[in-house]
């Protein structure tokens, strides 16, 4: 273990990787601060840039964006009552209240420290868990992978938004988009309408830039945006104001601890992720608190818990990708795309064949969390300044990068048009209330799922029993069934409460 870590640190502590980590974390924080632009769209846009970079550096930077965004979103949530990131929506409830009472520094400080502790905790658990999990995953054959992906898709759909039917429809739509191109087994051309262009299928970056980038821009373009939130609070001036005092620490330690563990576990689940983790943590803290009436009026536990949870979840999200090769959320799906562009297929073999990649990435997360702590405590004022950049200047830039980025993938203007169409689809999805995450994940998992499904059926010579005959596969199928059938389980996962919390938060923040 120690040799692995030292090998990893040798890589991640190299000068250029530290720079890339820094760029990623800073960019991530900025993205987190800016409402509307999220890590998904940014990473999609940057994937084209990573062609030139070495894979390790590219992933270090892109990962930095992801967990950095969890730190950044807190700033606007606390100071402006606007969520920079979906995962920081919950922080608004108590965080902004604290700011209104003049305790913005404490809220931001405890959020940053909690995030650091949770992020580091998550990374440690990742370092410990990943190797044995990879070993275990080596036993997986096509039937196991099929069952696993079915479970993953089921979770994404169930843990999604309000309507399960709509989520399933989006998943199906994603699977449909994934079928465009060559059939993975027989190489038959599907849905290409006779063109050469679609032979390789729809490019993931185009889909992501379209739905998350252009789609978001179109949505924001509905109204002329100007000025700030009326709930704006000034940023604390001195560093001392950002340090929570003893009483705050005492109150926050347990929420941070619980948030870290809860967050990491939820992060591992496909479809779980930072958002769900933050909601669950808030609900848990409120339940466990001595005087729950304080929540909603500026209870520091309501900030410490969720903020820790979302960062731990970000670490947990890497587990399925690095050990099993299955992305747990949209960002991981994009990272997987980045891997494949460089010719590496993520999965259990990474540990054996590219330990430098594996440990380089994991150790970079330790470094990233430290960088983010520095950025978010003493340097926080810089990021606050960024909020002041009028959105009207940023959106043309974002569109422009997306447009050229789309072109640069294959040197085809058709890709630009396709991206814009997806942008329109993304916009419609927003307006008609359909979730994007099931679509994206199904799109990525679809071809993989179909391939292993058909391979399994070839092995079993047409018998679907193969999925039940093998123990691991049986177990996975059983868990899937449990989710689908048991309302108790889904209620326990607090979809109910998640939805009602969701509604409550929306009412509070007026979103």
């Amino acid at each position, binding site marked *: 273990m120690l040799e692995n870590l030292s090998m990893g640190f040798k890589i991640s502590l190299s000068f250029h990787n530290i720079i890339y980590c820094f760029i990623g974390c800073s960019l991530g924080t900025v993205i987190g601060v800016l409402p509307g632009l999220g890590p998904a769209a940014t990473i999609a846009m940057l994937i084209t840039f990573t062609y030139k970079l070495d894979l390790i550096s590219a992933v270090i930077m892109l990962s930095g964006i992801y967990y950095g965004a969890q730190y950044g979103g807190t700033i606007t949530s606390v100071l402006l009552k606007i969520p920079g990131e979906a995962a920081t929506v919950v922080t608004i409830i108590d965080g902004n209240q604290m700011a209104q009472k003049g305790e913005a520094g404490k809220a931001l400080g405890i959020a940053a420290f909690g995030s650091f502790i949770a992020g580091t905790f998550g990374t440690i658990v990742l370092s410990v868990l990943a190797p044995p999990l990879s070993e275990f995953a080596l036993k997986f054959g096509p039937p196991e992978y099929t069952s696993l992906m079915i479970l993953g898709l089921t979770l994404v759909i169930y843990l999604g938004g309000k309507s399960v039917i709509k989520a399933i429809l989006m998943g199906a739509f994603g699977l449909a988009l994934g079928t465009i191109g060559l059939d993975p087994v027989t190489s038959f051309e599907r849905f290409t309408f006779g063109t050469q262009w679609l032979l390789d299928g729809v490019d993931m970056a185009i889909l992501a830039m379209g739905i998350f980038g252009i789609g978001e821009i179109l949505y924001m373009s509905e109204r002329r945006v100007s000025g700030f939130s009326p709930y704006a609070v000034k940023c604390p001036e001195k560093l001392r104001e950002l340090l929570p005092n003893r009483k705050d620490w005492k109150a926050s330690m347990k929420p941070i601890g619980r948030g870290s563990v809860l967050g990491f576990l939820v992060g591992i689940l496909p479809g779980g992720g930072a958002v769900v983790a933050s909601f669950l943590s808030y609900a848990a803290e409120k339940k466990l608190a001595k005087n729950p009436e304080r929540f909603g009026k500026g209870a520091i536990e309501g900030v410490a818990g969720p903020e820790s949870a979302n960062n731990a979840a970000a670490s947990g999200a890497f587990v399925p990708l690095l050990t099993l090769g299955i992305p747990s959320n949209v960002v991981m799906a994009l990272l997987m795309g980045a891997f494949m562009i460089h010719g590496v297929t993520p999965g259990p073999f990474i540990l054996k064949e590219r330990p430098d990649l594996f440990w380089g990435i994991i150790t970079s997360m330790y470094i990233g969390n430290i960088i983010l702590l520095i950025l978010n405590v003493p340097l926080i004022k810089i990021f606050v300044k960024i909020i002041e950049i009028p959105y009207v200047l940023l959106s043309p830039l974002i569109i*422009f990068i997306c447009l050229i980025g789309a072109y640069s993938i294959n040197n085809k203007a058709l890709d630009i048009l396709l991206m814009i169409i997806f942008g329109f689809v993304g916009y419609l999805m927003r307006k008609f209330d359909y979730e994007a995450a099931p679509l994206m994940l199904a799109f990525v998992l679809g071809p993989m799922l179909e391939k292993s499904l058909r391979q399994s059926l070839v092995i079993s010579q047409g018998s679907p029993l193969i999925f039940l005959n093998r123990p691991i596969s049986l177990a996975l199928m059983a868990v899937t069934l449990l989710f689908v059938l048991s309302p108790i389980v889904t209620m326990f996962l607090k979809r109910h409460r998640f939805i009602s919390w969701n509604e409550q938060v929306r009412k509070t923040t007026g979103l």
Partner: protein
Amino acid sequence: MFDKRDLISSFFLLVLGLFMAFQSLKMAVWSRSGPQEGFFPLFIAVIIIGLSLLIFLKSAILARAEKKEILKKHEESEVSFFRVFSYFILMLLYGLLIEKVGFLITSILFLILILKYMEKQDWWITIVLGSASVIVGYFLFVSFLGVPLPRGLIKW
């Protein structure tokens, strides 16, 4: 609760599902060696058709039952679909013209139209931000990444 959006969206999804089913039936679905290329798409299409029909019928029944004003989930005031549509068209034009007219001209035109006319910035900002974007874009993509951006009418 009747939601007009569900009615419309489910209808389109239904059409999509039917289209997909139609196309996949043209392909081989099953053979002795197991599922063929049409199997998965057909399966997906059936799911889409089934669920979208479900939503569609539910909305239609509710619409009949309620006969009231359509419940609007978001405030419709201040929402300018004209703006959305304009952005959409402008982006499409960019994509359609970039190969014929070239990166430089198309980008400059695009940025001017957006910054000056859509976002109503003054000329100063438009020119500065516009040229900065094009220059940075050029350096990032052409110099750093080596992506050949179309030259179009100007031969640089």
